[in-house]
């Protein structure tokens, strides 16, 4: 079949901007982690923990995460459909509107405009920008899929479509609000309904933005990197549909022991446990795809990122359901265990997969060998050590915190004051801050390697290097 002319410029631009926002997210994350150790590092009113923390999360999810989704989806859809993008102009508009939305979000959050809904802090005018951005993206991808030259859809396309539709529904429903002024609105829902809708959004944003897209990327870039197909396409299809059928019921596990009806909590708990099956369907498919190829874990830096990424996905999807059980949730909820869980997902799963994809894309698009494979390997170890040093101490901290909060004297009074439990956290928070610095050094090396790759003299990449081996 004749090779159609694919749009790679837009992919390159999204890679660039996702790197920029990814660095911002990590840098602000490091700053807020040290603000928790030393409150004097809060410089009011703009640079306080309360204003910087949502910038860290939003830059991470929407700037780095979604920016990488835009880059990889626009790359994958053209190749999986053997069809150029439906509209290059729309993609270009999407790029600029994406950056405008991220900047508007950051500025308004710094100024203190917030809905106070976690992961959906931006006020209504920016909500409208997000909706326009997503519709433009979705239309372009879906129209390309409709016009595809390949009849059968590879599994990545299914995950991509789920993400496009899922995010749209979640965001629109949770964003329903009554504006009171230009930067103040009130939720369309009240009381527990508001909380229930919000966590239906919150947890499924994890599903549709931070699970389905990285799985689409994993299924595409693993065979591209190893040079062998995935173990079973049929297993991937079943895992996909069971994930889609189950995920949307689980949001209320964030609201265990709250006034939300018991049956809603139980339903969420049950579906969360069931979700282990489809999640591990993908993990096992990934591992079995490595049959006879495990030597590549030593030789191929892309495979290291991808396989460690899917491993952390597997661990994440065991820990998450465990946390959704009422008795366990009662113990660890509101402790530092929870941010550790989230960061294993973001630093271990989503970022590891995204790093592999970007390394692959940059060498392919630029037509050059990677500047330094040893630096890529160093980046891998810094990302791994940084993530583990972040999460493991915070799990220990969470258990310690929960134990101290629950400790009682014989007369029924609390053994420890809240301040005493806070003081015990300092060593763990230091470990987190240092881990963040290690992780950030890895990101800086990653960006340096990418920069040096694209600026060096033109040279056709060897097949081995383009696939991650060198």
């Amino acid at each position, binding site marked *: 079949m004749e090779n159609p002319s694919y749009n790679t410029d837009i992919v390159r631009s999204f890679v660039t901007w996702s790197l920029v926002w990814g660095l911002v997210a990590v840098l602000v994350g490091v700053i807020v982690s040290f603000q928790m150790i030393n409150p004097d590092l809060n410089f009011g009113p703009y640079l306080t923990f309360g204003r910087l923390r949502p910038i860290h999360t939003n830059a991470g999810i929407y700037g780095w995460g979604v920016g990488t989704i835009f880059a990889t989806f626009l790359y994958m859809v053209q*190749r999986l459909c053997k069809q150029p993008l439906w509209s290059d102009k729309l993609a270009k508009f999407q790029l600029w509107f994406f950056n405008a939305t991220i900047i508007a979000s950051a500025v308004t959050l710094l100024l203190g405009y917030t809905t106070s809904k976690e992961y959906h802090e931006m006020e209504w005018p920016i909500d409208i920008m997000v909706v326009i951005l997503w519709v433009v993206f979705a239309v372009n991808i879906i129209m390309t899929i409709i016009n595809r030259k*390949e009849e*059968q*859809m*590879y*599994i990545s396309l299914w995950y991509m479509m789920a993400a496009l539709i899922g995010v749209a529904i979640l965001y629109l429903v949770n964003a329903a609000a009554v504006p009171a002024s230009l930067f103040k609105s009130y939720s369309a829902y009240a009381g527990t309904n508001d909380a229930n809708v919000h966590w239906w959004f919150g947890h499924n944003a994890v599903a549709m933005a931070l699970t389905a897209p990285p799985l689409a990327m994993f299924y*595409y870039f693993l*065979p*591209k990197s190893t*040079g*062998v*197909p*995935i173990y*079973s*396409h*049929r297993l991937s*299809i*079943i895992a996909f*549909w*069971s994930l889609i*059928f189950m995920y949307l019921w689980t949001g209320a596990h964030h609201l265990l022991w709250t006034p939300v009806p018991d049956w809603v909590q139980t339903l969420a708990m049950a579906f969360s446990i069931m979700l282990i099956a489809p999640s591990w369907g993908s993990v096992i498919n990934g591992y079995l795809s490595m049959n006879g190829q495990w030597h590549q874990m030593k030789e191929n830096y892309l495979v290291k990122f991808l396989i460690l990424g899917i491993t952390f996905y597997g661990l994440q999807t065991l820990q998450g359901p465990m946390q959704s059980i009422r008795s366990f949730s009662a113990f660890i909820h509101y402790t530092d265990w929870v941010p550790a869980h989230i960061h294993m997902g973001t630093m271990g799963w989503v970022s590891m997969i995204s790093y592999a994809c970007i390394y692959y894309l940059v060498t*392919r698009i630029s037509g050059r060998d990677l500047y330094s494979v040893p630096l890529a390997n160093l980046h891998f170890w810094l990302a791994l050590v940084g993530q583990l040093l972040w999460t493991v101490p915070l799990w220990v901290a969470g258990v310690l915190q929960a134990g101290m909060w629950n400790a009682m004297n014989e007369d029924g009074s609390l053994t420890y004051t809240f301040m005493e439990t806070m003081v015990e956290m300092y060593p763990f928070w230091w470990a987190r801050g240092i881990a963040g610095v290690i992780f950030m050094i890895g990101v800086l090396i990653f960006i340096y390697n990418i920069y040096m790759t694209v600026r060096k003299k033109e040279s056709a990449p060897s097949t081995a290097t383009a696939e991650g081996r060198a």
Partner: protein
Amino acid sequence: MDWASILYLGITFGLFVIFALIVVRTYSRKRKDENEVAKFRMLDDD
């Protein structure tokens, strides 16, 4: 049981049936090759 509950149960059952049909279709012996062919396309050059 009120109408809302019946509707809720019906939708849940309907979703389960759809899922079961997807599993049966995907793992049908007749379609085994057809359902696996897509993965080999990944070996094509980008």
